[in-house]
């Protein structure tokens, strides 16, 4: 008979289930009657004959079940198990709710973190064959990761054989005017073939060709999809149209499609993503033999079969050659070739993996906790299981029934978790730092569903195994006799449950220690003296188009005027402008200057960060003056050249000397007017709040070294946000075509800068909180079970004269013993795992004794709270009752 007709038969039986059963019953009854008749004929008494016949037929329920399992579908028994499981769970709502909540929270947290990992680390980058893309940087002893010089790039491009194509790009925002409200657009200058390297093609028009790289040919622009839609109404015939950027007419030659992602950059960084508005052609202006300035970033596509290592070796060989050709500028550099994926997500990887580890630990604890609760329930259900076994249910069936219950719980928990993840992911994304890569790729998508499904199954099996195994060892006879009060399996079961609780407490300790370290690290960062005063400060950025402000004098006059006008506003305490704001990644370096009366050590030229500032800048930012004076209106283009240095620069180059009045110059054979005199020394501001130390730096007065892109700083006497409109008005009064961009309060910049440690602390802290709650539930469960088992013992002790506090001590000692074992385990694991956290915490040792001690005490306190109720119950044991009930 073929499988198909077998299937049809089974189906027929399934559909006519009732008939099948009644026929089987009738057949059995007939069999019993015939057997009885025969026994009667053999001379047996009627009563004896009947019971003998029944006995001979055996366990009818089992027989029916076995017969049915042969003809039935396996899913029928599963359905039966499920129905039974639902009934069981509905009957004990408190147990079910605790289980569902703990599982739902743990699985949900895992799904949410996995969504982030999936979006950031697992999804491929949105470029064709993205694994072939690399970033190219230079490196030297002073500058481990540095942009390229354009002419070096041109030589790399011409000489290499490793890359299919190479391109450079550099940040250069542009000001759009005469198309609605003036606006600053995020812009990048790109060499020809930049989009070709990325594997992208314009939606409309074309990308820049090599002709556009020739200086003077550059008045072309490519728009992003967003700019095209929002500013130009999705005009399909836009290619060829002229628009005004930086007061000059640019021809639109292309529009990129939606989803064109900026690969991220280091120099004046713009985050990875659809963050760029326009691209303009980079042109190789200037003297190809002067290669000191580094401001373009390399990106390239490896040829097939060329490894990153091979490409790096080749570029280094080319660089060595360039070092011989241009010894002044190109010697001493090596080339870094970094896969684009690593460059984009490398910095976030460690933290995400730590978070995954933390949240996975929570799930493990939840499993241990669920197993624990199920074991407690299993001992309460001992009688039920014993009855089922005694009725002839095979052990495998009972185990399967229990596993069905566990899986039902874990799946319901998983579904709940998925709901939590759907809500939680948006919250999580909002907590991520602004520069976190690929946040827009984070969604609860198919891989997250699959992941949740998978961990639900694994969780269910993991926590269901212990009770199922326990059930398989149940002895029906003893189970029935003792009714589940004390069984031979009990001591074994207590051991298992104790082990589970010890591991719960241990793992919770690991998380608490992690959270504690992150909290200390965060506090350290928050309590650092930033070097400026962040309160009540509004900042914004302005850039002056070269077309309108052609001379240094014109730029200087504009900012001087703006300073004066802003300073005169009512709620403004002080106003100024500077080339940059603290902690925003400013990285402009000047090297090769000479200091009067000093010689640099060979091969180690003098270098420092350079900045520009107007007179009010330091006061508005709240940077302290250590010696000398700030800039003032008397410092003009024609007066003596001056600078202000920071303390790091004074300490580096004039150690132990009074720096005021010292001189330095960029000329090798300086005339008197080439010397720049130090007139002031100001406090240090580090690059980032957690940078190890401040870099040496100096400021030119804006009037002497004008910079057209400046950050405006306004210190208010009240809420700085109220000044935003006044600021826009003042700028408009000076020039109606200027855009005021990046208006924000300094507080926000500061809070952005600690966003990563804050996020790590909040998440790990939340996980640790959940973990310790689970561990407390586990401890409570075990202690309260043990108290109920020892009622008779306590009764006896009290009958023999023990006081309440003796009993209390017995219970507490047991709880503390478990907790201490757990804490010891947790501390050992934490010590072993300390290395992982090292890069994530600031100014705290990963084995910080204070944190370890605090966590130990916290865990003991929680354990004491958790066992308080059972311990009280123990002390209230009535000796008479306890003894009688045994």
């Amino acid at each position, binding site marked *: *008979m073929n499988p198909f*007709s*077998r299937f049809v*038969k*089974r189906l027929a039986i399934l559909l006519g289930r009732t008939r099948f059963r009644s*026929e*089987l019953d*009738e*057949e*059995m009854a*007939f*069999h019993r*009657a*015939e*057997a009885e008749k*025969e026994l009667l004929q053999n001379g047996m008494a009627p009563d004896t004959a009947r019971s003998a016949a029944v006995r*001979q*037929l*055996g*366990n009818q329920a*089992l*027989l029916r079940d*076995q*017969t049915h*399992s*042969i*003809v039935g579908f396996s899913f029928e028994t599963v359905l039966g198990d499920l129905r039974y499981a639902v009934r069981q769970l509905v009957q004990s709502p408190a147990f079910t709710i605790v289980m569902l909540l703990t599982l739902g929270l743990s699985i949900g947290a895992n799904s949410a973190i996995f969504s982030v990992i999936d979006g950031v680390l697992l999804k491929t980058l949105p470029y064709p064959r993205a694994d072939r893309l690399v970033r190219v940087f230079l490196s030297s002893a002073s500058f481990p990761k540095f942009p390229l010089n354009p002419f070096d790039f041109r030589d790399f491009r011409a000489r290499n054989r490793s890359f299919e194509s190479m391109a450079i790009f550099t940040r250069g925002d542009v000001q759009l005017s005469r198309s609605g409200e003036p606006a600053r657009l995020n812009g990048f200058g790109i060499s020809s073939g930049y989009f070709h390297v990325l594997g992208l093609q314009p939606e409309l028009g074309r990308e820049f060709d090599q002709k556009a790289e020739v200086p003077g040919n550059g008045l072309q622009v490519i728009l992003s999809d967003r700019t095209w839609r929002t500013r130009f109404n999705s005009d399909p015939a836009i290619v060829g149209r002229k628009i005004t950027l930086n007061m000059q007419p640019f021809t639109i030659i292309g529009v990129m499609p939606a989803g064109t992602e900026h690969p991220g950059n280091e120099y004046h960084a713009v985050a990875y993503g659809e963050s760029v508005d326009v691209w303009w052609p980079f042109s190789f202006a200037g003297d190809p033999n002067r290669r000191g300035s580094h401001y373009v970033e390399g990106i390239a596509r490896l040829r097939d079969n060329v490894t990153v290592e091979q490409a790096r070796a080749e570029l280094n060989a080319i660089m060595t050659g360039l070092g011989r050709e241009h010894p002044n500028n190109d010697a001493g550099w090596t080339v870094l070739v970094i896969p684009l994926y690593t460059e984009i997500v490398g910095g976030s990887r460690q933290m995400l993996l730590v978070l995954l580890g933390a949240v996975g630990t929570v799930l493990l604890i939840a499993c241990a906790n669920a197993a624990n609760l199920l074991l407690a329930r299993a001992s309460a259900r001992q009688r039920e299981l014993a009855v089922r076994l005694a009725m002839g249910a095979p052990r495998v069936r009972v185990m399967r029934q229990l596993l069905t219950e566990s899986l039902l719980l874990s799946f319901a928990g998983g579904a709940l978790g998925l709901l939590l993840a759907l809500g939680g992911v948006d919250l999580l994304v909002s907590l991520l730092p602004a520069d976190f890569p690929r946040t827009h790729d984070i969604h609860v998508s198919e891989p997250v569903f699959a992941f949740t499904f998978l961990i639900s199954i694994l969780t269910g099996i993991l926590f269901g195994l212990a009770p199922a195994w326990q059930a398989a060892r149940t002895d029906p006879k003893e189970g029935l006799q003792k009714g589940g009060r004390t069984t031979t399996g009990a001591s074994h079961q207590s051991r298992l449950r104790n082990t589970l609780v010890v591991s719960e407490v241990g793992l919770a300790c690991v998380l608490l220690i992690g959270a504690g370290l992150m909290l200390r690290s965060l506090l350290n960062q928050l309590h650092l003296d930033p070097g400026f005063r962040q309160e009540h400060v509004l900042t914004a950025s302005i850039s002056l188009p070269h077309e309108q402000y052609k001379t240094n004098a014109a730029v200087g006059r504009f900012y001087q005027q703006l300073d004066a006008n802003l300073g005169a506003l009512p709620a403004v305490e002080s106003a100024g402008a500077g080339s940059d704001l603290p902690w925003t990644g400013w990285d402009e370096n000047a090297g090769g200057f000479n200091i009067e009366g000093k010689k640099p050590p060979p091969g180690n030229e003098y270098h420092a960060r350079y900045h520009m500032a107007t007179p009010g800048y330091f006061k508005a930012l709240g940077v302290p003056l250590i010696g000398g004076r700030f800039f003032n209106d008397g410092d003009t283009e024609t007066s003596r050249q001056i600078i202000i240095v920071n303390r790091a620069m004074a300490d580096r180059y004039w150690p132990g000397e009074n720096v005021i009045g010292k001189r330095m110059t960029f000329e090798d054979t300086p005339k008197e007017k080439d010397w720049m005199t130090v007139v002031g020394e100001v406090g240090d501001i580090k690059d980032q709040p957690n940078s190890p130390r401040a870099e040496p730096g100096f400021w030119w007065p804006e009037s002497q070294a004008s910079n057209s892109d400046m950050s405006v700083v306004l210190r208010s006497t009240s809420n700085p946000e109220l000044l935003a409109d006044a600021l826009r008005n003042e700028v408009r009064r000076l020039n109606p075509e200027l855009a005021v961009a990046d208006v924000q309060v300094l507080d926000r910049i500061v809070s952005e800068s600690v966003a990563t440690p804050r996020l790590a602390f909040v998440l790990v802290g939340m996980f640790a909180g959940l973990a310790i709650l689970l561990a407390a539930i586990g401890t409570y469960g075990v202690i309260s079970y043990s108290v109920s088992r020892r009622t008779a013992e306590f009764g006896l002790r009290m009958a023999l004269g023990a006081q309440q506090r003796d009993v209390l001590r017995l219970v507490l000692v047991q709880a503390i013993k478990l907790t201490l074992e757990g804490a010891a385990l947790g501390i050992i694991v934490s010590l072993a795992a300390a290395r992982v956290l090292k890069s994530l915490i600031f100014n705290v040792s990963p084995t910080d004794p204070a944190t370890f001690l605090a966590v130990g005490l916290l865990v003991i306190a929680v354990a004491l709270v958790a066992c308080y109720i059972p311990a009280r119950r123990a002390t209230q044991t009535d000796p008479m009752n306890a003894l009688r009930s045994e």
Partner: protein
Amino acid sequence: MAKKPDLLPGTLDMLILKTLTRSPLHGYGIALSIKRLSDDVLTVEEGSLYPALQRLLLQGWVKAEWKMTDTNRRARFYTLTALGRKQLGLEVSQFEQMIEAIGRVLSDAQEV
């Protein structure tokens, strides 16, 4: 009570099919028939008989229909099908081969 030998595993189906070669029988009749023909040596546990009958039905080796017995009671009678007869031949020949092989091993002269 002396313990009776268990049925060799896998032989129950064969024995059921064999008892049905003479005439259709109900479940009790099959058990009785096996017991009698083996001179009370083989007893078929009811716990195995009915599941086995369902298995044979599913394979299509037997058919079942409700009929009246001589004593006028309703009972399910099982009849051997052509497919079942073929299966019986197959099982018997396999069984004989096995018995023969076991016999050869047991009658090894050296040992006894």
